[in-house]
């Protein structure tokens, strides 16, 4: 079972990301959960959201404390919150940033694999707005193989209608551009 | 819908205590509440019906001759009809009279 934690700010669409990923997985006849952290945070506040994806039925309904993957939608959160908290040593930390490993390492205590993607840059170019949730979904899919890239299509269409192609393009571009910048010490 | 007037057992209580006999309050005669009863002097009556319209029990009815009378099964003896009758055709008298 793959467990994912998303970090974003209220209004950036972290909840939409988890929903889209869950729907894509379910479309592939997999089992999945997508759920927000049920806090009182409003627009702008740091928020988290979660996914579970598995080939078997998922029974567990408690929180996710040791994710396999952490996705950070907003680089300003790095250093502000402990984005790597509980992340499995074998896991991946995916950050929307153009920063170098050295720069990131100043604020992140994680010895495992780290990947980056210029989600904001891609979102500006493809969507015209700095909303990175669908973009980073593409990067996540590449790194984890949680679902096939094409499986995002129908949930994106359902969700975004007319502007779905732009979101698909953004996801695809992130899928192609995401880079693992550190293989970690293990 | 058939139903027993008075439910002897819990089984006979209608679901939800619904009542399917509209106007069945008529079974209860409020006439016994009365201390005085209205008497019409039809010689003075102008058949206007003010007694009919003002009766809280709806027990004043028009007879075949167009005069009015109270159904004493329901008349509580409030005296409104006598009080409101313009030509003073109605008088309240003690029940025992």
């Amino acid at each position, binding site marked *: 079972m793959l467990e994912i934690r998303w970090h974003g700010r209220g209004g950036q669409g972290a909840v939409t990301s988890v929903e889209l990923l869950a729907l894509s997985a379910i479309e592939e006849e997999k089992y999945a959960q997508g759920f927000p952290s049920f806090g009182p945070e409003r627009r702008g506040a740091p928020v988290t959201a979660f996914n579970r994806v598995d080939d078997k039925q998922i029974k567990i309904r408690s929180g996710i404390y040791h994710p396999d993957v952490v996705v950070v939608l907003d680089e300003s959160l790095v250093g502000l919150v402990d984005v790597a908290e509980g992340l499995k040593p074998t896991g991946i930390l995916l950050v929307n940033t153009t920063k170098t490993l050295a720069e990131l390492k100043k604020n992140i205590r994680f010895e495992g694999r780290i990947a980056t993607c210029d989600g904001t840059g891609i979102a500006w170019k493809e969507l015209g707005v700095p909303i990175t949730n669908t973009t980073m979904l593409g990067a996540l899919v590449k790194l984890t193989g949680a679902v096939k890239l094409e499986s995002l299509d129908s949930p994106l269409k359902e969700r975004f209608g007319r502007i779905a192609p732009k979101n698909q393009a953004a996801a695809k571009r992130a899928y192609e551009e995401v880079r693992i910048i550190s293989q970690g010490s293990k | 819908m058939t139903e027993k007037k008075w439910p002897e057992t819990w089984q006979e209580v209608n679901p939800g205590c619904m009542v399917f*006999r509209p106007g069945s309050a008529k079974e209860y005669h409020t006439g016994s509440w009365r201390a005085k009863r209205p008497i019409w002097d039809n010689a003075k009556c102008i058949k206007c019906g003010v007694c009919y*319209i003002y009766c809280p029990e709806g027990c004043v009815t028009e007879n075949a001759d167009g005069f009015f009378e109270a159904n004493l099964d329901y008349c509580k003896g*409030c005296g409104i009809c006598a009080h409101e009758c313009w030509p003073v055709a109605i008088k309240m008298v003690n029940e025992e009279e």
Partner: protein
Amino acid sequence: MNTATKNPKNVIENFDLYAPKLVSKEEFFVGGHRACQGCGEALAIRLMCKALGKDTVITNATGCMEVISSLYPTTAWNLPWIHVAFPNAAAVGSGVEAGLKALRRKGKIADRRVKSVAIGGDGGTMDIGFQALSGAMERCHDMLYVCFDNEAYMNTGIQRSSGTPFLASTTTAPAGKKIPGNQVWKKNLPEIMVAHNVAYVATATPSYPIDFMNKVKKARQIKGPSYIHCFVTCPTGWRSTSETCIKLGRLALETGLFPLYEVEDGKYRLTVEVPEKRRPIQDYLKGQGRFRHLTPDQIQVIQERVDIEWETLMIKVEHSRSKESLRARRSR
């Protein structure tokens, strides 16, 4: 003697002499109910039902009328009737309307209009049911709400409500040695309903039965929310004699305390003329035990308030009239 007899001329103008005879003889609220002798509210309900006719569903708030009319296994109602609780007649009535509308639209019931009418006392309307009433009126259901205002919680034993008049003695605002009865002025609910932009708002009393029934009929026709505030005598609570039930309502009008008017699309109109020279409020107060403790000074305070309220209403009526004539002139 009743006041009508004293001023036959004035009354005849407002009360067509033989009109009562023409009123439908069908009773939808029948005798055998357990209301007090001379109950103004029971009378008002009887008249209201006559005006509504058979295609009506009544929702009744908890209160005297529900208690006295529905002792299982009997009912005084010849109309479909539902009672749920004290504060929610307007909400239940709005559900009745929504249900009937949906079922009619879907062809599940006969294709004809059945009016949802919710009723409650002053407590069930102006106090505990106020929120539900506001909601139902604001949502623009096709329903009529009639408040039967006898100015206190009579069902539970004459406790003060927001409909209780200034200085009236009630069991929770008694005329004590230090505090002479209810200390605040009565809430003006019809005005609050006007502020809801309700299509039709009217005041009424069974003392003017034809006026009341005409208003009910008018409200019934309106395809939307309407509100009637019906002022009813409670001989028990007011400590007045049973036979003066009608007279007190008439005096309330003749003193200008409770004028009968209607507000259609925001326009005010008096429906029953008030004598040029209004009677002094004392005439209304004196027959009622709840005001027996009042001093002349206190009566004067009430008189001044009645005068102000009357003048305020007259300004609205005048304003509506001039608006009308302005509109008429413009359209010409």
